[in-house]
C-alpha cells in the first residue's frame, strides 16, 4: 500500500519531467545537444519499466537475462571480424552467380547464425535458470 502511494505521488513529477524533456527535444536543433537529450529521454522513458522490473519478485531473473544478451551482443561485436574470416567464403566457379557475397567473399550464413543465436538466447537462458532452480533442493519451512 505504501509503495502504491509513493508511486502515485511521484508519477506526477515524472510525467512533468518527461513532457518537458520531450518538448525541449522537439524545439532543439543542435545535433550534439539533441543526442545528449536523447539519452536522457531514453532513460526517462524506460524508467517505469525498469522500476516495475526492480520491484518485481523476478528481478533476479530479468536483470541477468538482459545482461547476458548485452554480453552476447558485445561478444559478437568484438569477434565479428574473426568470425567473418573463420566462416568459409561462398564457393565460386564457372556456374556460380556472382553477387555481393561471392564478389567480396562474405560468408552467406554468418548474419543468419548470429541473428538466430541472439533471438534464441532468452529461451536458452531461461531454460538454464529453470534447470538450476529444479536442481536446488526445496527449502524446508520451519514450523
Amino acid at each position, binding site marked *: 500500500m505504501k509503495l502504491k502511494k509513493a*508511486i*502515485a505521488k511521484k508519477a506526477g513529477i515524472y510525467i512533468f519531467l518527461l513532457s518537458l524533456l520531450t518538448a525541449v527535444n522537439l524545439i532543439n536543433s543542435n545535433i550534439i545537444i539533441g543526442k545528449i537529450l*536523447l539519452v536522457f529521454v531514453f532513460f526517462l522513458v524506460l524508467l*517505469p519499466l525498469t522500476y*516495475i522490473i526492480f520491484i518485481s519478485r523476478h528481478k533476479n531473473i530479468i536483470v541477468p537475462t538482459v545482461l547476458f*544478451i548485452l554480453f552476447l551482443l558485445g561478444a559478437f561485436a568484438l569477434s565479428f571480424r574473426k568470425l567473418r574470416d573463420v566462416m568459409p567464403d561462398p564457393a565460386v566457379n564457372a556456374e556460380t552467380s556472382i*553477387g555481393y557475397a*561471392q564478389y567480396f567473399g562474405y560468408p552467406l550464413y554468418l548474419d543468419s547464425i548470429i541473428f538466430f543465436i541472439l533471438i534464441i538466447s532468452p529461451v536458452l537462458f531461461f531454460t538454464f535458470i529453470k534447470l538450476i532452480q529444479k536442481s536446488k533442493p526445496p527449502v524446508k519451512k520451519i514450523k
Partner: protein
Amino acid sequence: MNKKILKCLSLGVLFSLLSLGNLKSLCKIYPTLGSDNQALLLWKYAAGIGLLPIKDIFYPYGLLSYYSGQNVIFGLIYFLITPALFLCIFLTFQKLFKDKLFTIASFIVFFLFITIITGFETFTRYGSITALSILFAYIFYSNKNKSQKIIIALGVLGGIIVPLINDVGIYALVIFVSFSVSNKLLRSKFRLQASQLVSLLKELVLFILGYLLGLVPFFIYLAFTQSLSGFIPYLISISELAQFAKTAFFHSIFTADNLFTLTILMIAIIRLCYKFFFGDKKASFATYLQIGLIIVLLLLEQKSIIRLIDMQLTFIGLLLLLTLLYELKLSLQKYGVSKFIVFIYFINISIIILFVIGLHPSDKFMNQYPTPGRIISAVKIFRNKSCVEDNMKFIISKNKQLPGIKKQLYSRKNFNKKVFTFPGEPIFYIMFGQKPPYYPTIYEATPIKAQKELITYIQKENIDVILYNVKTRSIQDEVPDTVRGRLLYEYIRSNYSVERKVGNYLIFIKNRNK
C-alpha cells in the same frame, strides 16, 4: 443492418478517404533514372503491351501490383487494401485496449506513423502480411476448437493470395504452421500430449489441403496463359535470388530504424519467454498478437538479413510496441498510477517515436495526402493508360542524351528498332517500343542460366545495337557488372564492336563478318 457491420462500413469509408493519397502509387512519376526505377517503369510498360508475368517477363511481386496500373479491378483492389488494413488495425486496437481513448489515440499515432514514416505503398505491401498474421492470431485465440471448415478456409485464403502478392501467400503458409505449433503449446501449457500432436498434424494437413485448393485458380491461369512450363524455372530464379542478393547485414545495423525494430523485437521475445517460463502462462489476445507480430518480424528480418529493408519494418515494430505498452499500462494502473498520467506517458512516447528518434521516412510526408490533381491523374490512368507515356515525357525532358541516341540510331541504315542495354537501362526498350528481354537488367539476370537466356534473346530478336552505359560500373551492391554478368559481357565483347560514343553510352554494333 447490423450495427457492427454499419460501423465497419463507415470506418471503411473514412479510411478510404484518408488513404486517397495512395492513388498516386498506381502511376508514379519516377524522378530519377536509377536502375530500380527503370525496372519498375519497364514492368508497367510490359503490362501495358500485354506481356505476361512469369511467362514473358520476370516479375517477382505478383499479379496485383503488375496489373494495378492497367486494369480497373486490380487497381481498385490494390487501392482498397490500404483502408482494409487500417480497418483491421483499428479493430485490433479496439479488441486489445477495450478503451475508447487508447484505441483512438493509438490509431491516430499509427496512422501518423504510416503517413510520416512508412508511406502507403510500403504499408500496403508489408501490412498485408501483418494483417494476415493478426487474423490468424484472432482465430487461434478465439476458437479453441476450430472447425475443419475454418482451417480449410484459411488455407484457401493463403493459396488465393499467392498469385496476387507472391511473398504474402508464401509467408501465410509459414505463419500458419508457426501459429498452429505455438497454439498447441500454449493450450497444453507446454506439455504436449500424443492426442494434441495428432490434432496438430490434422490441422496442418487440412490447411495445406485448403492451400492447394486455393492455388487451383492460379494453376488454371498458368495453363490458360501457357505459362505452366515457365513456372518451375521462375521458382528456381526466385530461390537463387537469395544467393546473389545477399549483402552484409550487421554492417548497417546501427540505423535508427533497425535499432528501433530489433530492440522492440528483442524486448517482446524476452517478455513472452519470461511469461511462459516464470509467469502465469495464461495466453490473452495480447499474447497471441505478440506471437503473430514476432513471427512476421522474424520472417521479414530474414529478408532484411539478405537485403536491408529496415525502413519498411518499423511500423510492425510500432504495432508490437503498442501491445507491450498496453501491458505496461495495465501494470502501471495496478500500481495506482492514474489513467491520465498513463495517457500523457503514451503521448510522450508517441511524439518521441514520430519526431525525436530519427526514423527515416521512406516517402515524402506530403506525398501521402490526397490532392485534387492526384485523384484526377489516377482516374486518367485508367481512361488513357498514359502512365508510361507521362513518365517517358518527363524522363526525356530531364535527360537530353536519350533523344540524341535515338536520333543517332534512327539515322543508321537498316536499323530494326531493337536494342539491348548493358548493364541494364530498360528505358531504351520503352523508348524503341520493343519487346523487352525476360530479365530487365543484369542484376535480375545474375544467374548464369539467366544470362544465357538474355543471349538467346539477343540472337532471337536479331539485335544489332547494344547500348553500354560506361558511367555505370555497378548497378547494385558495388559488384562490377562486368563480373556479375561475365558471360553476357564476354558474349557482347566477342560479337559486337564499339562504333561510337554518344554521351555516356558506347554504341556496340554487331560484327558482320561472324
